[in-house]
């Protein structure tokens, strides 16, 4: 009965969104069409090429399933209970007799159902790729079982974390961090230390390494039916772990956890201790707010960042630990390399330099990724928080201009990202060690991560540090545009990672192996596009239509990609800043924009005159009549905001 209630509330409205399914089916159909056309061209004259293409496509599709499914589970799961808590409906559920464990289990089920809709859409092109050859049914079975296994774990973990959090903005970064720490880190770490070949050349090995249970069962080392059996038991282990997590979350909700969320005092205590021990280091994370007379918006935002609450605030200590831990790991690895420890033994076809870079890159890339996700979540709340608390109206009435508000917030968040500059230190040390080992400062070596040159770590480090500009720009733009915290958070992720993906694709397509010349070309192209985009954006007084905004964003993506890792973030930053500053007042006053969120919101059943789904009492006739009045429906909608 309880499961039915959750399904009615969470799943059925989603399944009724026919357009979503039509769109996804269309995507899957288009993908299948491309596969067929691509594979069909070689199918009749070159079976080997067809087989190779089928294998590659299947791998890509499997990875797409894994990433989309895992992230969908993580995001949906992280907001499953915290969003109920935000709406004060958790206590209503419990008072209505909902059993705690089943509430969590139902939420996990709903998350999996919704995430499965995404994953299943990819089955069609996957089947076509499998038909082309290159992979066996056994391979596919192992791959699908691994994806299912990870999704079950991710859903249960995220929902459990959600049960601990007060707000979605706390739950999402916490969920992602813990998911990565528990499910991805073991695989990445073991892969970094032991090398991919230790896990076999089996195509699913890459996927499997991203999951602790399947990894421990050693699927990658096995073949045929044994691998299927190991993958199956990996799924069983995942389900068992999910049940344990759900029981723990249910037990938490059964106590006072359903109604009150305590602050994580140990985290704050640790924060205080570390701050006292290393005041200079921690000042990097907590800059003094400054003078309110000079820049009130910056002053306010720095206080807000410094005093973030609960888990959300706890993230600041996680940031510190991440960076501190990452640097320590890099130093230890470098020292081991310097001392000629066994880990520096060159892999076949590679060199000590490449190997060293791999070791240092692994933890640092992870640190940068996790810090960036946490940062994006925080920054995406910069404006939406003002809208949701009603402060934006009050800010508009002050003498602060839109330019000042945007600029102050941007500066605060760019500064908040800057501690990642520390990453440049171990990378510099890495370059120094490599130089000492080889004696050739610009020698190029090949490794499993691609082509490295000694110039690249420095450039990349600078790109990482400067990518704070891009992250802050993307997050604040999404926050201002979408107004609602959760939407802004998701939009930020897309806005930020989309240009990164474009950048990666571009780099791959133009990479000639010469780091320096590639960098110069990219910088020149980027500088040109940057100037054109900035000029074009400034010449326009505002994006009057969404198409214009999309066009500008697309240009920014291309500009960022072409500008390379150093100038790219600046392009995004400047475009986002220009868009926000030029459109600030018009955007807030423009009615259509202001009401966009309300009007886009799908109509609730009672608003459209439909019957209530959750009550056996039905709707009293006089209320039903009023609810069916078109004017009443509009009032309800408009009052949602005003």
């Amino acid at each position, binding site marked *: 009965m309880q499961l039915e209630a959750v399904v009615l509330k969470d799943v059925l409205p989603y399944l009724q969104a026919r357009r979503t399914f039509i769109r996804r089916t269309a995507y899957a159909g288009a993908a299948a069409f491309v596969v067929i056309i691509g594979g069909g061209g070689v199918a009749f004259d070159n079976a080997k090429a067809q087989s190779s293409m089928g294998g590659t496509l299947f791998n890509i599709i499997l990875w797409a399933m894994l990433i989309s499914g895992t992230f969908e589970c993580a995001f949906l799961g992280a907001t499953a209970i915290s969003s109920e808590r935000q709406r004060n409906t958790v206590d209503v559920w419990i008072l209505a007799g909902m059993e705690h464990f089943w509430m969590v289990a139902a939420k996990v089920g709903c998350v999996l159902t919704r995430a499965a809709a995404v994953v299943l859409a990819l089955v069609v092109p996957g089947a076509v790729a499998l038909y082309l050859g290159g992979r066996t049914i056994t391979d596919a079975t192992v791959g699908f079982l691994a994806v299912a296994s990870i999704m079950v774990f991710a859903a249960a973990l995220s929902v459990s974390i959600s049960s601990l959090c007060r707000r979605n903005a706390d739950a999402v970064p916490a969920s992602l961090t813990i998911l990565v720490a528990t499910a991805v880190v073991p695989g990445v770490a073991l892969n970094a230390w032991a090398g991919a070949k230790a896990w076999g050349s089996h195509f699913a090995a890459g996927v499997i390494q991203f999951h602790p249970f399947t990894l421990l069962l050693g699927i990658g080392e096995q073949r045929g039916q044994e691998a299927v059996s190991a993958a199956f038991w990996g799924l069983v282990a995942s389900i068992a772990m999910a049940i344990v997590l759900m029981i723990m979350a249910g037990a938490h909700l059964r106590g006072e956890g359903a109604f009150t969320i305590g602050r994580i005092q140990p985290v704050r205590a640790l924060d205080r201790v570390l701050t006292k021990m290393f005041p200079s280091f921690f000042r990097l994370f907590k800059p003094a707010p400054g003078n*309110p*007379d000079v820049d*009130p*918006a910056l*002053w*306010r935002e720095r*206080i*807000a960042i410094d*005093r*973030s*609450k609960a888990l959300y605030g706890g993230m600041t200590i996680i940031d510190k630990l991440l960076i501190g831990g990452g640097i320590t790991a890099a130093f230890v690895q470098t020292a081991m390399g310097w001392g000629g420890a066994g880990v520096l033994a060159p892999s076949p076809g590679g060199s000590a330099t490449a190997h060293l870079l791999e070791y240092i890159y692994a933890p640092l890339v992870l640190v940068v990724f996790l810090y960036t996700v946490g940062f994006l979540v925080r920054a995406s709340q910069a404006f939406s928080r003002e809208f*949701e*608390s*009603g*402060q934006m*109206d*009050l*800010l*508009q*009435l*002050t*003498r*602060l201009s839109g330019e000042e508000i945007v600029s102050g917030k941007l500066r605060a968040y760019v500064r908040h990202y800057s501690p990642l500059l520390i990453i440049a230190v171990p990378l510099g040390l890495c370059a120094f060690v490599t130089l000492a080992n080889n004696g050739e400062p610009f020698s190029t070596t090949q490794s499993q991560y691609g082509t490295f040159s000694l110039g690249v770590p420095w450039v990349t480090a600078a790109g990482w540090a400067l990518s704070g500009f891009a992250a802050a720009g993307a997050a604040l733009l999404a926050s201002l545009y979408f107004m609602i915290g959760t939407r802004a958070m998701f939009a930020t992720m897309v806005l930020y990672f989309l240009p990164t993906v474009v950048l990666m694709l571009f780099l791959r397509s133009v990479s000639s192996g010469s780091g320096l010349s590639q960098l110069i070309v990219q910088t020149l192209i980027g500088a040109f596009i940057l100037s054109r985009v900035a000029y074009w954006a400034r010449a326009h007084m505002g994006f009057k239509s969404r198409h214009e905004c999309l066009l500008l964003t697309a240009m920014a993506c291309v500009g960022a990609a072409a500008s390379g890792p150093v100038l790219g973030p600046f392009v995004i930053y400047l475009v986002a800043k220009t868009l926000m500053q030029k459109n600030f007042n018009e955007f807030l*006053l423009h*009615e259509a924009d202001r*009401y966009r969120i309300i*009007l886009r919101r799908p109509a609730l059943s009672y608003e459209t005159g439909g019957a209530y789904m959750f009550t056996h009492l039905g709707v009293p006739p006089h209320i039903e009549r009023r609810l069916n009045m*078109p*004017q*009443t429906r*509009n*009032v309800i909608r*408009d*009052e949602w905001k*005003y």
Partner: protein
Amino acid sequence: MIKTFNLTKAYKNLLALDRLNMVVEDGDIYGYIGPNGAGKTTTMKILATLLEPTSGHAEVCGYRVGKDNKHIRPLIGYMPDFFGVYEDMRVDEYLTFFAAAYRIRGDKRKRIIDDVLELTDLGGKRDAMVESLSRGMQQRLGLARALVHDPKVLILDEPSSGLDPRARIEIRALLKELKNMGKTILISSHILSELQELCNKVGIIEKGTLLFSGSVDEVRNQIRRGTSIDVRVSGDNEMARAALEMHPDVQTATLDNGGIKVNLTEKAKDHTFIAPYLLERGFSLELLKQEEPDLEDIFMRVTKGVVS
């Protein structure tokens, strides 16, 4: 101080304000009353320069809303109905931020913050985190925030909603103090008894249309005309009823609970004629009472409970 001229606001197919004409004079405390969805918040948002009207226009302190927003904004203090605060700031930081945002600097800012904290009785909470304040204190802090730049006009949208009786009394006392300081206040509230005590003028809006606007006494007189008068004589009440019914200013006279209930015509000036009229005819009067309508009676009588 505040004038609207055929102010109209439409949201898609919803007419939130329909040709609103309202005048608030300098020094008035104008109570703006109406059921939920009547258009009160929309009016206030337009006057606070946060929304643009669909047609018509409004003036605040002689400046036109929309065209002269830069001049209007420093002159108004606005407190929205949905009042959120920066929970992560201390009370003095919160006020410092808004004072700085209004370009009030240095010692002057400190002095003003001291003053508004004293006025709102939050001096003892200066270093407290905003999130730790009670709802009533947060409302007072909101009022303090609206006062930091010493505005001439205060636009307060339901400042007492959700407050307990003590907090409501405190807010009311504070508003009286502001009235004595010469501020012009436009205030909406659902607690009508409170407005009755506080306001010298009221406007009643329903379905986007202003049904009534004027002083509380005017509206009371107007409503009083429609109310019934209880009369009881020591002799035969039936005869007295018949006599009253003959009077041209009496619309109906009916026996009710051992007395007579008299309803006057629209043309009747007041009920003072009844006593001499009955005495002249030999009746000795035991009771002559007209129920004093309060703002709730007025509100219920004027409005029909429909929303736009």
